[in-house]
């Protein structure tokens, strides 16, 4: 399926530019010319489809659906809906308050808050395009499991008193949303896809350029020495570096790909990706508006431990 893109990159680099094969610059450029169009096309298709699906599940519907759900079943549903819901750190507060106010249990809300940033279609397309479907699937399944478990644990710990008191006072009005027609959904999805690609192509290109650089220039066993399987501290170390970092899963994937090639074990790499995507310093600062510091600390700790364990698990089985 991707052969066309490979042929195109080979044609540009070897025939058209006439660069010598095997040279680091040629390798880096080939990686770049192959990756950018391929990822962009995959991305356009995926975002269009996801936008249409998404128009059926706005958060206003989600909160009613998850309201008063029993633990566990609720956690599973929340984690799954989280995959399809877009997330930016600043929307965390209205989502959180809206959910709590609608009677969604705290643990269930957290399952949603974990899976929504951790798993998104953009990151998945990057994983699919660069690592293949097995790794993409592994990432989704482990992300959902982590979201379910961490939300479940937070629910069981009964931490409702660590939510800022005013959150419980807010009463929001019930809104009736306009139900779009199919044409409207498609037009909206089309507009969103175009706007998104315009904004992201440059971003993808920069990430692919860094990926290409590592691919071509960094010696291939470089990371095996420092962060290979025989270093048990590698997983917690990369996760602790990744937690405060703020980057979307999408921008990280090309870099992760290049790192895996240079000997970073897959489990360590996926753990790094998860920690960057799921947690960030700006998000914690924003969540402080609704959560007491202690609850943020518990949330971050549970998630960090879960991600580290996942990293070890994958390194052991893959």
């Amino acid at each position: 399926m991707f052969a066309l893109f490979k042929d195109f990159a080979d044609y540009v680099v070897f025939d058209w530019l006439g660069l010598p094969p095997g040279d680091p610059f040629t390798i880096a450029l080939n990686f770049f010319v192959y990756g950018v169009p391929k990822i962009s096309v995959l991305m356009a298709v995926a975002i269009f489809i996801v936008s249409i699906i998404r128009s059926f599940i706005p958060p206003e519907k989600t909160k009613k659906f998850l309201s008063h759900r029993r633990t566990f079943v609720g956690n599973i549903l929340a984690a799954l809906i989280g995959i399809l819901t877009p997330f930016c750190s600043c929307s965390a507060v209205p989502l959180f308050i809206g959910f709590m106010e609608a009677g969604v249990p705290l643990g269930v809300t957290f399952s949603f808050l974990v899976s929504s940033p951790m798993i998104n279609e953009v990151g998945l397309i990057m994983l699919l395009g660069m690592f293949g479907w097995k790794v993409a699937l592994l990432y989704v399944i482990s992300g959902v499991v982590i979201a379910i478990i961490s939300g479940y644990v937070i629910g069981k710990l009964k931490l409702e008193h660590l939510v800022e008191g005013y959150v419980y006072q807010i009463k929001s009005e019930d809104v009736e949303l306009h139900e779009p027609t199919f044409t409207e959904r498609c037009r909206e999805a089309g507009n969103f896809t175009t706007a998104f690609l315009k904004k992201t192509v440059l971003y993808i290109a920069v990430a692919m350029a860094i990926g290409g650089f590592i691919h071509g220039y960094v010696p291939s066993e470089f990371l095996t020495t420092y962060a290979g399987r025989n270093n048990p501290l590698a997983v917690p170390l990369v996760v602790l570096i990744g937690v405060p970092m703020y980057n979307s899963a999408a921008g990280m994937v090309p870099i992760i790909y290049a790192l895996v090639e240079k000997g970073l074990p897959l489990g360590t790499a996926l753990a790094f990706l998860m920690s960057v995507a799921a947690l960030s310093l700006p998000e914690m600062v924003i969540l402080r508006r609704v959560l007491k510091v202690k609850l943020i600390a518990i949330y971050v700790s549970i998630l960090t431990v879960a991600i580290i364990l996942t990293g070890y698990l994958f390194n052991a089985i893959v």
Partner: protein
Amino acid sequence: MKIEVFEASCCKPTNVYGLVERAMSENGIRAEVTKSVDVMEAVKRGIMRTPAIIVDGKVVYTGRIPEYEEVVGWLTGGK
């Protein structure tokens, strides 16, 4: 007519207020327009995603930047 505009507080700059003003001046619509970026106020009104427009207490849309023609449609009562 009373129009309330909620702009997105971050992520992306939105100028829905500008669209509303243009729609009003180009179509001779008179209304009282308020603009807010307060997330809490939006949540109280049942809005979970900004930007959003409320016309006479009814949330007409949320979560995206509308087309100019749509805004005109809402302000002229969906005609």
